[in-house]
Each structure stands twice: as C-alpha cells, then as structure tokens.
C-alpha cells in the first residue's frame, strides 16, 4: 500500500516539530489552483480558490470528493445494508448494489456492532483512513435502522472519522433530518435520469408506500423523490454528490440533462460512471447484450458536462466492503473472522492526527512542485493535448512497477496543466489466467489512447511491445510527483515535435475493463 511515511516514524515526531508542521500548513492553506484553465487537478478538480472555505474543509481529506485527496487518504465501506427498495436493470441482487459497487462483487455482510469493530481495527492500522461510507450491499436508506445504528456506534468510538452514505434516493426525503442529526456530511445519490421515459428503461420497478410500482409510474416517483431529496440535502448544508451510470443508447445523451438538473439543485459533484455489463453477472442488461461505453465515449460525456460543475473522474466503483486508498483494496486483511480473533483494539487519535499532518505536508510539497513546473510552462506555446498513463500506488507519485500495476491513472496534459481524467483497471490481466503476452495486449488496449506510460520500473519485453504499439514507456521519472513529471514530459514532447524529431499523432480509443474485479 501507499505508505508514504511509515507509521513507526511517527512515534519519533517531537511535539515542537509537529507544531512546526502545523505552521507550514497554515502558511499554505489548502492547495492552490494552478492557473491555466483555472481548473487544475486540485480538489474535486477545483481547489479553495473557487470553493467556499467551509466546503473545502469538508472535502479536503475525502478521497471520494476530492481528486487531490484520493492520492493520499483512504476510505472504507462497511456492508451493513443488504436490503433494497428498487430494482435496476444493471443489478443482480445476488451481488452488491451496482450503483456504488462494481457488478459481480459480493461483500461480507456485517451487523452494526461488527462494523464498528472493523472500523476501529482498520483505523488503527491505516492512519490515513479518514472516511467511512455505507454503500450497500443494497441501499443504505432502505435499511435505516442498521445504517444509523452503525453511524451511532462509530461516532462514539472514532469521532474523527467522516461519515458518508450512498443511496438510490427513493427513501431519502424523510431521512434528511436523520442524516443531519448523525453528522453525516456527504451523501451520494445515484441519478440516472430525470425523464420517466428514460427511467422506465433502467428501472423495472420500485417498492414505495407499500406497493410495487412499475414502468413509467415507478420512474416518475423515483425521479421526483431523488430531486426532492437533493434539494433538501442542499438546504440542510449536506454535500451531495451525484452518481450516474452511463448506458449507451439509453441515457448517454440524456445525462447532459441530468447534469443540468442536479447542478441547478446544488449538487456539489457529478460522477459519471461507465455501465459494466457482462452476461455472467445475470443482470437484465448483461443478459440482453447492453454494452458499456468505451473510454473515449465516457471522457467525451464527462468533458461535455464539465462546464462550471465539478466532475469526478476518479471513482473506482468500489465494493461495499472496500478498505484502503481508492484503487486498492485491503478488505481481505480485515475479514470478520480475523476481526473476531483480536480482543483489544486500541484507537490512537493522536497518532492518527500526527500521521495525517505528515501527509498534508507532503501534499503541499507536491503542489509547490507542480506550481513551479507550471510557471515554466508559460513560455511553451502549443495546442497539443496528450494523455499519459501512470503506474502509482498513491501519494501522487510514480511509484509502481509496470508489471504490478492493478490500474493506471490517466492524466491529460496540455499547456493548461496536467489534469487527472480517469483510471483504467487492469488487475485481472496481470494476476490470473492469462498468458503473459495476452496480459500485455489487454493492458495496451486499456491505455491505447495514451502517448506515454510512466512507471517506476519496467522490463525489456513489455517496453518493446509498448513502443511497437506507439506508447512511450517512461521510467525516467521514477518516484517523482506525477503532475510535475507529466508537465516536464509534455514540455519535452512539444520541443521534440517542433524540432522534427517526433511527429505528433492522435491516439485511438481504449477499452474499459468489464467483468468482476478481484478487488
């Protein structure tokens, strides 16, 4: 995992040093936006410059709400909410809720008591774990008793952990006061449509007011409840993120309408996720051959919705019991069985704080490095845009071996800056079942739209194959900061194109990985 600073090093921090660190922090409050397009990759994509301070305070350490934070802070989900009150065509209820999780994944269900225990164990092992979410395996608000009991128990034992939940929105309006009472400050609603005609193709039925509603009637109720819930959250001062599943041919164009509708009702962030659809998941869409979008289709829609709303592109569609940084999953270390073996779990609030301060200092350093690189960019003139794939374990650094990467983070680089635009999962390919050559081919397909791939290390064989596919394998920036390196590479790239050493060619599309994930 991404231990940027080891926990043991913490024990050696003297209080006066800690004070000093705090001072450094106060001097560079938050992370600045880096000019250019005005929307750097800081914050959800924005930084404090275009964000109210109280909002920045809420999101700055939240990996799901802040792209910047997701390199440094971890989250965990506890699967305490198995029931659901609607049916989605991309969901098979044998598995986790597909709104929040990747289809085909089964999480270990916990009681609220077990969940609280797990949170303690994880928080003591992973000091940068700052957020606890309830996202299933069904709908968190279709199980209000279990969900709120879990929050209650956790806020007692681990008061520094931020709470959040995800919901399909059907039961939301009446529960907003409860959500407020429990100090839940982030809520995610999955909204796939604002038009019942579109909705009836996504939701076969809902269970509402003691009745099963079908077709257009069901979709009409659902959209009204979702938008009402969103308005109530906004007026209660609770941050709302909207998830939308992009289903080509059904709601892909319509999501621009959805984006406008949620923006006007105060949604803080919009996250458009690709439909993941496979016959083996046994979902309606899977069985009927409904395809998911390609990487470029997804990016084009996200770009179209960007405008002045924050788009989230770093969502990993985590499983309902995920643990760790986004993109990694350590849930196997914290299974129920292992938890019950431990008798005493110590919760060291001070150590957690100190660790988080170190992370914060590293974050500031990273921003400074990027700003410096951007300043030099002022002299570069070019309208070229390239995508770069990065192998990273977190911390905002290029610190993963090509062959070990479970995913690649994708950055779009131009004179306006280096912007995080997504990630491509490749885990299955390097681990199971496939021959080495085949594995490499699938990685190349996953990052085929990239000009270069940044790695900490790479073997000779894959290097040649990547080059043959027109992707430049780069290990020169090993262990450096991603954004700074991407900007430096871009400057060099533009210079080489100008000198005639290189011809800039547009890259093709890339494939979004389907199928169940190990993590």
């Amino acid at each position, binding site marked *: 995992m991404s231990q940027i600073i080891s926990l043991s090093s913490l024990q050696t921090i003297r209080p006066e040093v800690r004070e000093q660190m705090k001072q450094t922090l106060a001097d560079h409050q938050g992370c600045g936006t880096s000019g250019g397009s005005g929307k750097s990759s800081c914050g959800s994509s924005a930084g404090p410059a275009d964000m109210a301070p109280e909002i920045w305070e809420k999101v700055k350490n939240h990996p799901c709400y802040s792209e910047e934070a997701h390199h440094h802070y971890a989250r965990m989900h506890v699967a305490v909410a198995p*029931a*659901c009150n609607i049916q989605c065509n991309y969901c098979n209820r044998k598995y986790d809720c597909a709104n929040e999780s990747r289809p085909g994944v089964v999480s270990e269900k916990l009681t609220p008591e077990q969940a609280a225990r797990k949170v303690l164990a994880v928080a003591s092992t992973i000091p940068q774990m700052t957020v606890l979410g309830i996202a299933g395996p069904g709908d968190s608000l279709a199980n209000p008793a279990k969900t709120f009991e879990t929050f209650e128990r956790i806020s007692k034992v681990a008061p520094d952990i931020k709470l959040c939940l995800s919901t399909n929105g059907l039961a939301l309006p009446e529960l907003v006061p409860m959500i407020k009472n429990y100090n839940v400050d982030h809520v995610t609603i999955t909204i796939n449509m604002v038009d019942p005609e579109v909705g009836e193709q996504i939701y076969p039925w809902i269970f509402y007011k003691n009745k099963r509603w079908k077709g257009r009637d069901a979709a009409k109720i659902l959209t009204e409840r979702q938008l009402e819930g969103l308005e109530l959250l906004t007026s209660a001062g609770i941050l709302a993120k909207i998830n939308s599943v992009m289903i080509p041919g059904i709601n892909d164009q319509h999501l621009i309408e959805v984006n406008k509708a949620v923006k006007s009702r105060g949604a803080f962030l919009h996250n458009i996720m690709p439909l993941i659809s496979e016959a083996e998941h046994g979902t309606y869409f899977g069985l009927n051959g409904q395809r998911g979008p390609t990487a470029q289709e997804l990016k084009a829609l996200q770009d179209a919705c960007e405008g002045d709303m924050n788009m989230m592109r770093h969502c990993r569609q985590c499983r309902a019991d995920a643990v760790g940084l986004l993109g990694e999953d350590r849930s196997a270390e914290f299974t129920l069985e292992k938890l019950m073996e431990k008798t005493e779990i110590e919760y060291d609030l001070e150590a957690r704080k100190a660790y988080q301060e170190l992370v914060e200092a590293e974050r500031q350093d990273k921003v400074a490095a990027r700003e410096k690189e951007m300043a030099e960019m002022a002299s570069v003139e070019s309208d070229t845009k390239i995508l770069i794939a990065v192998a990273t374990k977190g911390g905002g650094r290029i610190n993963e071996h090509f062959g070990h990467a479970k995913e690649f983070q994708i950055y779009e680089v131009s004179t306006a800056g280096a912007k995080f635009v997504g990630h491509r999962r490749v885990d299955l390919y390097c681990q199971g079942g496939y021959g080495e050559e085949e594995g490499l081919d699938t990685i190349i397909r996953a990052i085929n739209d990239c000009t270069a791939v940044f790695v900490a290390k790479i073997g000779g064989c894959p290097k040649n194959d990547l080059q043959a596919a027109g992707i430049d394998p780069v290990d020169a920036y090993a262990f450096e900061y991603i954004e700074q390196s991407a900007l430096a590479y871009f400057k060099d790239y533009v210079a080489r194109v100008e000198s005639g050493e290189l011809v800039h060619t547009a890259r093709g599309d890339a494939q979004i990985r389907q199928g169940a994930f190990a993590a």
Partner: protein
Amino acid sequence: MAYKIIASQCTACSACEPVCPNAAISQKKGVFVINPVDCTECEGQYDEPQCAAVCPVDNTCVPR
C-alpha cells in the same frame, strides 16, 4: 392462507422482514422464512403481499 419463501432462491437480503405487517418473517439458517401461523397474506391490510412486492427475486415469496 399463508405465503412461503423458496429458500433456494432467497438472497437473504432481508428486505421482506421489516415490511411484513404481522412480523411473520425471520431469519433462519442464513435465509428468511415465513411463519405460516402469523402470515395473513396481508389480507385487509395491503393491496398486495408486502414480502412479494419488495423481494428482488421473482417468484420467491409465493403462496404455500
């Protein structure tokens, strides 16, 4: 006059348990079961059996 749950199809999602107006549903050995003594098929209480209306697996909450 009672409903039952086909155990082999139940995903143990628990959605049916709280919606039963007669508290006839409980968890046994991983899956959920209906106590036929308490079940009224929701007659006179709701238009449709609540467990069947909320269950995500078709034809899992059915008449005995």
